[in-house]
């Protein structure tokens, strides 16, 4: 068995495009669930909003407006990105206004429902590509700025990326670095303290004269914007978007990553993502190799795909039961976690 191949595959996935997408979405979830205690089970909706706004602007709107703005297609991405963030903000308001005054599980059900509504509705809207989604040179404006030399593959030690992937990966990690810094700055501030207070007991914070509704809304919006950033990276990196990519399981993957890395830790999502994707891809690759070489006889190659999800499901259960603060957890804090 060639473990080396599995290892490099795993490594390049753990810091690659997929990891960046999940990390951004999970960082948003960390703000909402980790710090403010908001049960957002529909983070995927925010991701989808990012991907679809960009996809629609670049592929549908830009060609339509070239008649009165000839260079629309050269700049469209840079207009579409703030627009996507604006739509994300509106979605947060739409979700938050009815539910943030209600019990926590209402938000859970409404957010997961919204994710599904979005997916089902988009499927039947032809301008958004219907079931097929949108594909094309969605990231063209972004790749036009690619400073890497025009070669097929870029080698970085153990891992190799294509020229466009490396550009996405580098920008992705810079953005992540900045957003981690932002999270850190926000969460050590009195604002972050009041969010953590709301997570522990909203009534107590109300009694201390804080407008908790406003702060929960701010947390929902901020976390949603992070999710939308994930969606923007997704569509730029893959240059396509399909409705069925945005299933509820995406959000549950993010929860697994968050709990694996440490809830309410600035670096929790980062550590969680790297470990999660490394282990996932490594196991999968090893299994594929083992099945192909006949080492494992009872599985067919096609049965390996679902194993990824089974592993995530089992991991989520076990983590939640045994170590809710897995890696960055604080011993003292863990001892208190009687919730």
């Amino acid at each position, binding site marked *: 068995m060639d473990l080396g191949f599995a290892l490099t595959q795993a490594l390049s996935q753990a810091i690659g495009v997929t990891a960046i997408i999940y990390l951004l979405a999970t960082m948003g979830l960390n703000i909402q669930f980790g710090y403010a205690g908001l049960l957002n089970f529909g983070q995927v909706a925010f991701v989808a909003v990012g991907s679809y706004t960009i996809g629609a602007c670049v592929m549908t709107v830009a060609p339509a407006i070239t008649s009165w703005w000839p260079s629309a297609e050269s700049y469209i991405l840079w207009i579409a990105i703030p627009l996507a963030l604006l739509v994300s903000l509106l979605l947060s308001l739409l979700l938050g206004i009815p539910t943030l005054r209600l019990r926590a599980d209402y938000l859970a059900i409404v957010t997961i429902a919204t994710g599904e509504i979005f997916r089902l509705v988009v499927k039947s809207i032809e301008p958004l590509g219907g079931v097929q989604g949108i594909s094309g040179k969605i990231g063209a404006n972004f790749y036009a700025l690619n400073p890497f030399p025009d070669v097929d593959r870029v080698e970085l030690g153990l891992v190799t990326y294509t020229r466009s992937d490396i550009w996405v990966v580098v920008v992705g990690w810079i953005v992540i670095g900045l957003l981690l810094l932002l999270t850190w*700055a926000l969460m050590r501030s009195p604002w972050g303290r009041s969010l953590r207070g709301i997570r*522990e007991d909203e*009534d107590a914070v109300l009694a201390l004269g*804080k407008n908790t509704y406003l702060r929960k809304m701010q947390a929902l919006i901020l976390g949603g914007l992070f999710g939308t950033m994930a969606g923007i990276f997704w569509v730029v990196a893959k240059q396509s978007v399909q409705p069925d990519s945005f299933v509820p399981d995406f959000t549950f993957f993010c929860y697994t990553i968050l709990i694996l890395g440490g809830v309410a830790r600035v670096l929790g999502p980062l550590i969680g993502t790297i470990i999660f994707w490394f282990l996932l891809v490594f196991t999968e690759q090893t299994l594929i190799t083992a099945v192909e070489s006949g080492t494992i006889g009872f599985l067919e190659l096609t049965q390996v795909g679902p194993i990824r999800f089974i592993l995530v499901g089992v991991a989520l259960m076990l983590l939640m039961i045994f170590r809710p603060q897995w890696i960055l957890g604080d011993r003292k*804090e863990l001892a*208190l976690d009687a919730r």
Partner: protein
Amino acid sequence: MPGEVAAAAQAALAVVSPEPGATKPDSILVADSVSRHFGGLTAVDVAHLEVQRSSITALIGPNGAGKSTLFNLLTGFDNADTGNWTYEGASVTNMPSYKLARKGMVRTFQLTKSLSRLTVLDNMRLGATGQKGERMGAAILPFIWRGQEKAITEQAMALLERFNLAAKSADFAGALSGGQRKLLEMARALMLKPNLIMLDEPMAGVNPALKQSLLDHIRDIREEGTTVMFVEHDMDMVRDVSDWVVVMAQGKVIAEGTPRSVMGNQAVIDAYLGAHHDRNLTASGESLTQGGNS
């Protein structure tokens, strides 16, 4: 040896006639026809109630008398079906709880709400109002709020000293004992510099050793001019510390007066005996059952 403020409050109340809905010389809180129904049940139906400024007023009554519900209504944690009430002369009827707290009408809870996974010091700092760093935009610019944060920390540490919690300031609040949490909650409420502090069963679950210190703190708070109103089952405490006692039963105020006059009131004795035949008036029963969602 009561302090000056205590003596003044007691003198003011001495001339008030001990009857339900009595008018007080200087009322900080005035409530009129406040009612709350749950389905067919009338939980609160208070015709008139005044609270004398700088007094320590106890609110007592058998289980289910509507004391906590009245607290919730007055502090904006529940919405009244009818009624209006004023605080410091201005109407605050159904005002959101956080706005009331900012105006200096601060409450604590029957089931202590210490924020477990925040440190004791952070619990305290959270209590300060008007924090610039609590605005999201300013939060990422520490130079805006750092000076204020320092002042808040000093204020918090001073209060923690006073409540004998300074040594625990770096611990998680969840690691404190039940009594210490009660102290922390009271100290945290003082961070808001309240004019009226409303304590919901401050003695419930507190061990006898700490009770005396809690009582002293309540007296001290009043001596600083803060009006104290509290719900309590511990009759010893009511007798010890309060200037005025309001008795509720079945949602209504049935008696008012000085502790001595109320304890001898036949209507009060009937209310207690009628509701709880086997109840020891000094026991602190009502706690446990707060089912449902966490």
